[in-house]
């Protein structure tokens, strides 16, 4: 399974350096000659888009830090007053960063569902997938702490609610929450540690992305057919996918640019334009859109489970479990066929799952009462049913369509091709 490394055509100083420190050989092999499947579709653009978004977030973030003041009495003014009004281009940097978080999650969620549809988590890509899940978790922590930094009233109460999740832990919960806060409420010590971690974690993500790519290039990219490809079915990453990624980036930047320039506050709750107020909880607390499905799961468990797990703990467990279940996915899905193109029944369940997550997100944006609560409970149950029951059974009972042996076969055999193209 080990890849053969190709020697780049180097001369002079570059050759001298590369013989001592093979970064050029490495870059050449990973970014230029890397053999990529020639049938990758546009859903495969989202990995590189995620990498670009991470870079944009880090670069804008580093410059924003040069203008931001991490103190409870000054943070709000330094963002809304100083950065937005006084710093040259400060409004642009902040809107790029704030909307960048939304764009980053949008891209990553599409990237994840791409993996779910085409079975990219299956052997030999289990570790690649699991590193990806770790990246999402660290992203969520980073995004949450970043949201607290402007110290608006939604920032404050989001920090209060999310840190209070840990109070559900039996026996030591309250102690842990006090430790997280560095006090008896969310206050300046909390803000300062969140600031420190919000700066640190993106670099942890960067290292994880490095591992993600290392694992990817070790086993090679999956492809829309989900079959193992031979050398003749692959083309060099450059120029074929560099140019395709550039085109995708252009389209993506139009969307990103639309939000930054024409709807910069579309994702920002109006309440966050008020400074943090420990005495006044906003009437309706909602997290950022990318947390809504998980928030709905948290609130769906409003009943004690089996008389031993109180509702509060149950909700927290369910919410964390909804992400952690993804770690087990490579083994929960028992089907040997990767791509949903050849799994007619799984394909339907995939789209039901997409719908289910959207429904959860919709419920998460509304108060947990009446219909919203009932629907959220059903959707939560279905979410876990999908991963824990449907997938293991489906792999055994589903009859997949015949798989092509190679990319050429469907073409050469004249008509035995998979239906969806």
């Amino acid at each position, binding site marked *: 399974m080990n890849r053969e490394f190709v020697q780049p055509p180097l001369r002079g100083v570059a050759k001298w350096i590369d013989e001592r420190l093979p970064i050029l050989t490495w870059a050449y092999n990973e970014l230029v000659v890397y053999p990529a499947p020639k049938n990758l579709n546009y859903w495969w653009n989202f990995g590189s888009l995620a990498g670009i978004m991470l870079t944009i977030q880090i*670069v*804008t973030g580093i*410059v924003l830090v*040069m*203008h931001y003041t991490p103190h409870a009495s000054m943070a709000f003014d330094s963002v809304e007053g*100083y950065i937005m*009004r*006084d*710093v*040259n*281009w*400060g409004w*642009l*940097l902040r809107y790029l960063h704030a909307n960048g978080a939304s764009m980053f999650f949008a891209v990553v969620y599409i990237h994840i569902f791409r993996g779910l549809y085409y079975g990219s988590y299956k052997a030999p890509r289990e570790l690649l997938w699991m590193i990806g899940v770790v990246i999402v978790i660290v992203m969520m922590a980073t995004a949450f702490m970043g949201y607290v930094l402007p110290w608006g009233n939604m920032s404050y109460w989001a920090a209060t609610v999310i840190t209070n999740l840990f109070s559900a832990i039996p026996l030591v919960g309250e102690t842990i929450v006090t430790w997280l806060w560095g006090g008896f409420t969310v206050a300046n010590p909390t803000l300062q540690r969140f600031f420190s971690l919000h700066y640190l974690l993106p670099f942890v993500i960067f290292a994880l992305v490095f591992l993600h790519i290392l694992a990817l290039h070790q086993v090679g990219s999956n492809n829309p057919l989900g079959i193992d490809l031979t050398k003749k079915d692959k083309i060099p990453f450059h120029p074929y996918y560099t140019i395709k990624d550039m085109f995708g980036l252009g389209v993506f930047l139009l969307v990103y640019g639309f939000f930054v320039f024409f709807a910069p506050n579309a994702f920002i709750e109006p309440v966050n334009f008020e400074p943090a107020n420990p005495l006044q909880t906003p009437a309706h607390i909602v997290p950022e859109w990318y947390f809504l499905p998980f928030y709905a799961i948290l609130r769906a468990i409003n009943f004690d489970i089996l008389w031993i797990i109180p509702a509060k703990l149950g909700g927290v467990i369910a919410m964390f479990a909804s992400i952690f279940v993804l770690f087990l996915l490579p083994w929960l899905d028992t089907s040997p066929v990767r791509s949903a193109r050849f799994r007619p029944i799984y394909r339907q369940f995939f789209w039901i799952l997409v719908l289910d997550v959207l429904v959860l997100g919709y419920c998460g944006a509304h108060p947990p009462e009446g219909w919203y609560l009932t629907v959220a409970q059903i959707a939560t149950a279905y979410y876990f049913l999908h991963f824990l029951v449907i997938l293991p059974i489906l792999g055994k009972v589903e009859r997949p369509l015949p798989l092509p042996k190679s990319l050429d076969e469907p073409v050469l055999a004249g008509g035995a091709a998979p239906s969806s193209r």
Partner: protein
Amino acid sequence: MAQTSSHGGAGEGTRRDFLELVSWATLGVGTLVALWPFVDSLNPSMEVLATASTELDLEPIQEGQRVTIMWRGKPVFVAHRTQQEIEAARQVRLDELRDPEPDEERAPRPEWLIVVGICTHLGCVPLGNRTGEPRGEWGGWFCPCHGSHYDTAGRIRKGPAPRNLEVPPYTFQTDTLVRIG
């Protein structure tokens, strides 16, 4: 960019060469434009620029007295010079000076000398603005860091500093009110 690549004959560009060139040029210019907000955000902000000038009432400053005020975060020396100090500064022959500048240019109103109190050598604040501090061999200012002596017009006379103490831009709003910056 006269060079064209291998797609065409010698000195002849193809459509593809043209497209490639335009693409790279667009990318390059686009990148530079996108970089500008990041670079410019590090320039002084509106808040900093709003405090870029400062006003000083000269009324209470006695003849012979020197005061230090802050302007753009820097010390500015305002000296109400005595007649002897003015004469000392104006009698010097310019070719004796390392950085020749007539006193008339440095102090259009001879009784008021206004200079930035930062040594032009390596940025220390020279002594001599407070009573009792050493004023150097020419009765102006003396930088304790590396021994630069300035005269009563703030001009460098001895020591490693290359230039005279900088005269900030200022205007007299009235006879007793000066606006620096």
